[in-house]
């Protein structure tokens, strides 16, 4: 097939949600792990690069190929088994990488799986599922994301404040390596020793031995910038968040969480940004206000900047789609949204009453809050939260009509707890100095805000991109992470260089070559190909 025909037939597979467009010569849609293995073997023999794709919803261009072959895993979309650990009362599912988050959620909430090809243990495990209501806690906004993609970029979402990122809920992986051999790793199976040496055995019995790098990961609540590295680490964690650069994930075992009986949401409007951050710190129990010790344990702590509220308020007046949002009063300056899960309404209410006093104590007003304690009202608050990125996308789509090179510019950086105010100051000053339009929202509980620049023209777009690189340097200097949940992919390769020096990046390259000696997988992702640097 010549390149033009290929582009005509498979052009959409040259892009992902990052809106970057790449190139490739061939594509395969394997249905089984055996098919992945035979393709990988063939490509390895021919020295052809492979780019792995899931649902192509990533924002960092991991799934955008530079050249060579694409392995698209969307046809490997089955839940293949279940396991129940009686001792821990824990429930696990085994899924193929192409299963979509939205599908998985539906299967779990309906407790309905196609178990025709499941083994006996899996079928038996299902009856334990009936005992409780379960859910999968990783909740990226994009529910059409695939499970393989979620594992590859260590995705998280709003509820990661309480539940952590994807990593914390992955208990097993099968990974096809460049020679077609397979790693079958369970959590707890391979732990790096005191000298940071590790070994992992493949299914064929080959021992892969190595040494962990010396670089230190940033001390932040959320990070997916480069390979996970920690003394005494579980080696499964190396593969989670590795952006498909070490092998192809062919199966994932995930642990489910138990659904609690009640779910509350509260949107709190604060009179300025500083007070909003103080509220976040009180929620995180870093400070007490009027000697009140909040013990809310929210699952999510989210933020909406003043500009974000102004944008929503404007849209509310002109766009019927947003008319079912409650009136955002002019006195509302900055908002913090929290979600609380519990088994008792009374327990939550006791804490919410205290929260009201804390808000007043900080100079806010407990009357300027929206409380939802039933599913219908919670839906309204979710709608409000999702309206923000929705609005940004609509505006970008409009600007794109004038210049289609312009894309959304959104950051994904996180900082340590004590640098939150500094980071926000840096964002606000950068936006103001460069005279850019931007809204800030996102996971403030994890010091992880998405700054969304809305460039009005190409020159602003370029200015925004330059600003992002400057911010990446400053965030790294604060001890932060340049990518907290989207992964480094190809777009943030220059950002990662601000976080790690060349020697440290070489340590990552060395790790990659241990598993992928010819560097055929996702070349150009996380760091540049070794030969390109020389």
């Amino acid at each position, binding site marked *: 097939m010549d390149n033009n025909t290929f582009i005509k037939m498979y052009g959409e597979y040259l892009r992902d949600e990052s809106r970057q467009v790449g190139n490739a010569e061939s594509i395969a849609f394997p249905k089984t792990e055996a098919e992945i293995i035979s393709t990988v073997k063939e490509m390895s023999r021919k020295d052809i690069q492979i780019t792995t794709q899931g649902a192509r919803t990533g924002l960092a261009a991991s799934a955008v190929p530079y050249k060579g072959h694409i392995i698209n895993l969307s046809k490997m979309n089955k839940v293949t088994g279940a396991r129940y650990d009686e001792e821990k009362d824990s429930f696990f599912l085994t899924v193929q990488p192409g299963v979509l988050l939205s599908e998985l959620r539906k299967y779990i909430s309906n407790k309905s799986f196609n178990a025709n090809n499941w083994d006996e243990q899996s079928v038996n495990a299902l009856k334990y599922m009936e005992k409780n209501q379960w859910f999968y806690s990783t909740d990226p906004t994009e529910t059409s994301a695939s499970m393989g993609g979620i594992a590859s970029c260590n995705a998280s979402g709003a509820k990661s404040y309480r539940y952590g990122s994807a990593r914390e809920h992955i208990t097993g992986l099968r990974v096809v390596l460049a020679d077609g051999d397979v790693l079958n790793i369970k959590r707890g199976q391979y732990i790096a020793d005191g000298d940071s040496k590790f070994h992992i055995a493949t299914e064929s019995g080959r021992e892969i031995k190595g040494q962990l790098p010396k670089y230190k990961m940033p001390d932040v609540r959320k990070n997916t910038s480069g390979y996970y590295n920690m003394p005494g680490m579980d080696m499964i964690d190396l593969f989670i968040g590795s952006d498909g650069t070490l092998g192809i994930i062919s199966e994932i075992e995930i642990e489910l969480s138990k659904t609690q009986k009640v779910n509350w949401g509260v949107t709190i409007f604060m009179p300025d940004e500083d007070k909003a951050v103080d509220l976040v710190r009180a929620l995180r129990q870093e400070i007490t206000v009027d000697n009140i010790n909040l013990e809310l344990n929210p699952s999510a702590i989210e933020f909406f900047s003043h500009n974000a509220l102004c944008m929503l308020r404007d849209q509310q007046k002109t766009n019927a789609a947003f008319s*079912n949002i*409650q009136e955002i009063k002019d006195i509302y300056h900055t908002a913090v949204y929290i979600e609380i899960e519990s088994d008792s309404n009374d327990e939550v209410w006791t804490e919410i*009453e205290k*929260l009201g006093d804390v808000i007043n104590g900080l100079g806010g007003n407990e*009357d300027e*809050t929206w*409380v*939802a304690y039933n599913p219908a009202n919670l839906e309204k608050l979710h709608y409000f939260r999702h309206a923000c990125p929705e609005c940004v996308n609509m505006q970008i789509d409009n600007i794109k009509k004038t210049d289609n090179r312009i894309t959304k510019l959104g950051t994904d950086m996180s900082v340590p707890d004590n640098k939150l105010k500094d980071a926000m100051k840096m964002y606000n000053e950068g936006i103001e100095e460069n005279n850019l339009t931007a809204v800030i929202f996102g996971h403030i509980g994890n010091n992880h805000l998405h700054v969304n620049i809305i460039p009005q023209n190409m020159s602003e777009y370029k200015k925004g991109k330059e600003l992002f690189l400057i911010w990446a340097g400053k965030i790294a200097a604060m001890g932060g992470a340049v990518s907290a949940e989207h992964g480094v992919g190809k777009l943030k390769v220059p950002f990662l260089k601000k976080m790690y020096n060349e020697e440290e990046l070489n340590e990552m390259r060395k790790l990659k070559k241990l598993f992928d000696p010819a560097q055929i997988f996702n070349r150009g992702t996380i760091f540049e190909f070794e030969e390109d640097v020389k």
Partner: protein
Amino acid sequence: MRIIVCIKQVPGTNEVKIDPDTNTIIRENVPAIINPFDTYAIEEAVRIKERAGAEVYGLSMGIPAAAEMLKEAISLRIDKGILMTDRKFAGADTLATSYALSKGIEKIGEFDLIICGKQATDGDTAQVGPSLAGALGIAYATDISKIVEIKPDKMHCLKITDDGYEEIEIKLPALITVVKEINMPGLPSIKSMKAATNSKIEILTFEDINADENRLGLKGSPTQVRKTFVPVHEANNEMIEGTLDEKAGKLSEILLKLRTEVK
């Protein structure tokens, strides 16, 4: 100004299941909620209060547990909840309900405006609002979608109709029923929920109102429900096979037959 909002407790709308044997609504384990149309009535009363200053009372007739629902209404910023509850009120149809409510309102005393939801989502009759106005001998307007202006002695509003809107001026005291287009009900705040938690619901029993027992509850209800049923929708598909000509022929036969049946 005093505004009275009539509020009914109904089964949560999304969860209604019909017992296939008895064709009645299964009420066990179904959470009770404020009739959704009444939430618009509450919101509109509260908006008038915030705009022009008013005292807003919520009035309901129901089982003692409905007191919790009135507390929820207080969390939506009404000032006071009044519950009419008595065995003698039970089993009331729309006529007996309107009569009982009118007696409750007489007990409350003066008022300027009564706001009701357009209808309740369980009975769907839309009769209580107008017949309550009748029992009280005051003017009423149904299906109000906007209050343009409210003055101490009259109000100017829009009534939604099948073809558009009617502009209405109505003398106060009056009763209006409101449709969902009128506003977007707000959520409670922590402060208003605290107020609800600390509130006391006033209870009115048969002893408290000056009513004729024979016009209350089951005794006072001329309506008898003979049967309730779920409408059955039947749709049958028939595939017409054959060549183009044969298909056209068969189709015209069927259409002609249908026409004769309709005639």
